[in-house]
């Protein structure tokens, strides 16, 4: 009886997805981007139109569990043909285990810069394992309607920023939507403010080992973060990502520090947004944004349809693909040549003239504990006042020294 039922279930399932084609190569494509299902559908349709012998099925998994789902599947000798990977440390975890197909030599990567490829290159063997798809940038969003109503113009310097925040607070508006309940949003927040205090040299110095996170430049930058706490929502310790967005969308909060991927959502919610890089330390000094490679498209080394999967990957390294990514997902594509008609994206692209790597993600997510988890914990403690900037810096330094 069991058997019959199974057969019935399988038959029902098979019928429902009955593919019209016969000798088609079917590729599976996994991602954590649930919000992008529709857009990827269109992009894939364009690919299939040019490659009628290949069909691609995009499956978006629950973001929080994506790592688990993917690593379990890969370790179990399974997994999709095409994998949407994250970059840097996360990529290294699966590429060093041999689960990904090296792409250099098989895919034309000429439209990608060395910097961009760094995020998808395995440090140990120098091979590229994924085609980077988009870069992300940390910016400060502000609600132009609120600013206008309060007669505020976008602040340039840290002091102006604090003054503006105070003015908003006095007017009964929460200046910053950001909370600390989701650790990663605090790290993002630090990406907007801290670089302008620790400067453009610090990244090179700390990654080369010339200095540590106890460097006075970094400690000063951390100290600035603590000054933001009064301008965050009441109970910010419990404000998570969804609440942050709801606060900003509804106009209850005037500013939101976030990644460039938020543009779409805010526009859809009808917020009249303006964007700016984090404020400069002093008048006239540099206003840098933190950027990183968000991830890439990789081929499962165990795929039975490697050729077809590579065909799709080659497609992702072309300008037309980058153009679709730009148009449909409002991402800043890694592949060169895409022109954006979206003024928001152009603005973000302009910020890149003064950019610094998003420090922990780019350089300190290869070992455990990661710089990110250390910094997130540290920032939470700093914001709630349970630790000083010096203590947090010492914790991060010690954690990274002990990481393996």
């Amino acid at each position: 009886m069991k058997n019959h039922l199974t057969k019935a279930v399988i038959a029902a399932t098979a019928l429902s997805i009955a593919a019209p084609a016969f000798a088609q190569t079917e590729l599976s494509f996994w991602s954590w981007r649930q919000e992008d299902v529709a857009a990827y559908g269109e992009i894939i349709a364009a690919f299939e139109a040019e490659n009628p012998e290949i069909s691609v099925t995009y499956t978006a998994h629950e973001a929080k569990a994506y790592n688990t789902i993917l690593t379990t599947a890969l370790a179990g000798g399974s997994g999709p043909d095409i994998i949407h990977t994250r970059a840097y440390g996360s990529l290294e975890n699966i590429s060093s285990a041999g689960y990904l197909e090296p792409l250099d030599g098989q895919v034309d990567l000429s439209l990608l810069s060395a910097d961009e490829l760094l995020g998808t290159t395995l440090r140990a063997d120098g091979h590229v394992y994924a085609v980077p798809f988009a870069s992300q940038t940390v910016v400060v969003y502000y609600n132009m309607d609120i600013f206008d109503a309060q007669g505020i113009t976008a602040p340039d310097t840290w002091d102006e920023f604090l003054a503006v925040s105070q003015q908003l607070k006095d007017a009964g508006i929460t200046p910053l939507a950001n909370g600390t309940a989701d650790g990663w949003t605090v790290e993002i927040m630090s990406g907007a403010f801290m670089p302008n205090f620790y400067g453009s040299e610090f990244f090179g110095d700390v990654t080369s080992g010339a200095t540590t996170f106890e460097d006075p430049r970094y400690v000063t930058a951390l100290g600035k973060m603590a000054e933001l706490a009064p301008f965050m929502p009441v109970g910010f310790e419990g404000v998570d990502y969804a609440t942050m967005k709801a606060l900003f969308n509804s106009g209850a909060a005037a500013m939101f520090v976030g990644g460039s991927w938020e543009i779409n959502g805010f526009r859809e919610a009808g917020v009249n947004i303006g964007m700016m890089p984090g404020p400069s330390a002093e008048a006239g000094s540099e206003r840098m944004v933190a950027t990183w490679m968000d991830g890439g498209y990789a081929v499962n080394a165990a795929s039975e349809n490697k050729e077809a999967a590579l065909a799709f990957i080659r497609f992702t390294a072309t300008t037309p693909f980058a153009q679709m990514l730009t148009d449909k997902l409002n991402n800043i594509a890694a592949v060169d040549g895409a022109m954006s008609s979206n003024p928001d994206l152009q603005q973000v692209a302009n910020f890149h003239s003064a950019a610094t790597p998003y420090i922990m993600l780019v350089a300190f997510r290869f070992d455990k504990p990661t710089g990110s988890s250390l910094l997130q914990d540290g920032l939470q403690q700093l914001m709630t006042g349970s630790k000083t900037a010096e203590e947090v810096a010492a914790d991060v330094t010690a954690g990274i020294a002990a990481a393996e």
Partner: protein
Amino acid sequence: MEKKRNAGFETWLMHIFLVSTAIIVLYPIFMMVMSGFKTNAEIFGSPFAMPKSFNLDNYAVIWNTTDVPRYLINSTIVTVISVIVLLITGTMAAYAISRYKFRGSIMVSLFFLAGLMLPLRLAIIPLFVQLKAMGLVDNLMGLIMIYTAMSLPSTVFILTGFLRSLPSELEDSARVDGASELRIMVQIMVPLITPAMVIAGIYNAVPIWNDFFFPLIFIQTPENRTLAQGLTSFFGEYSVNFGVLYAGLTLAALPVVAVFILQSKRFIAGMTAGAIK
């Protein structure tokens, strides 16, 4: 007199306690259902008020963007078959353990009990490798087998207790009447433990229906997703639309609550009356 007034006061206190507990239980559930009919603005602005209208807009969003009917069918298939297989195999094991004396019977019952204390979640990686080899990944059958295995220990545990309480003379009598061992089990003994089977069934069906962990790992194509799993990813997508979220929660809770309320008399009677006396 004194004593009587005292007793009255106590009773009064008891009722207050019971009623407030019932409110604490029911009010959040009520709010969940009500919020499913509200817009974001209503939820933020007047959280405790009744919804302005009982329209199904939020439900329409769920219906249109997710494959809820499919998830429902999958969850039903998985839960029903798991519980059936579970009750059949669980009864077999419990019957052997409780009704026969044989060498190693204590070892066998310990073997089943041990399963109760071993959290399968911790062995997820080898389990995946194994199911992969058996072709049960991305297959509802795989989930069914996992759930059956996971729930077997508690089922055997519950049913063993009930079966032990049955008088052995019934069995002897049937044996003298010429019934085979199989027939004694199926015709005489098992019908007498149906209340225990209802308990074991509901006790295990609830976590199976609600589980999202194993589907997350083992189900890969959206067509095979279960309700809890499908809704978890849906929650991620609609993280800022609270009204839709509440509607989703209500929808997911509805089938189990309905089954429970329909069966509650039997289930609770079975749970609290203990065994057949």
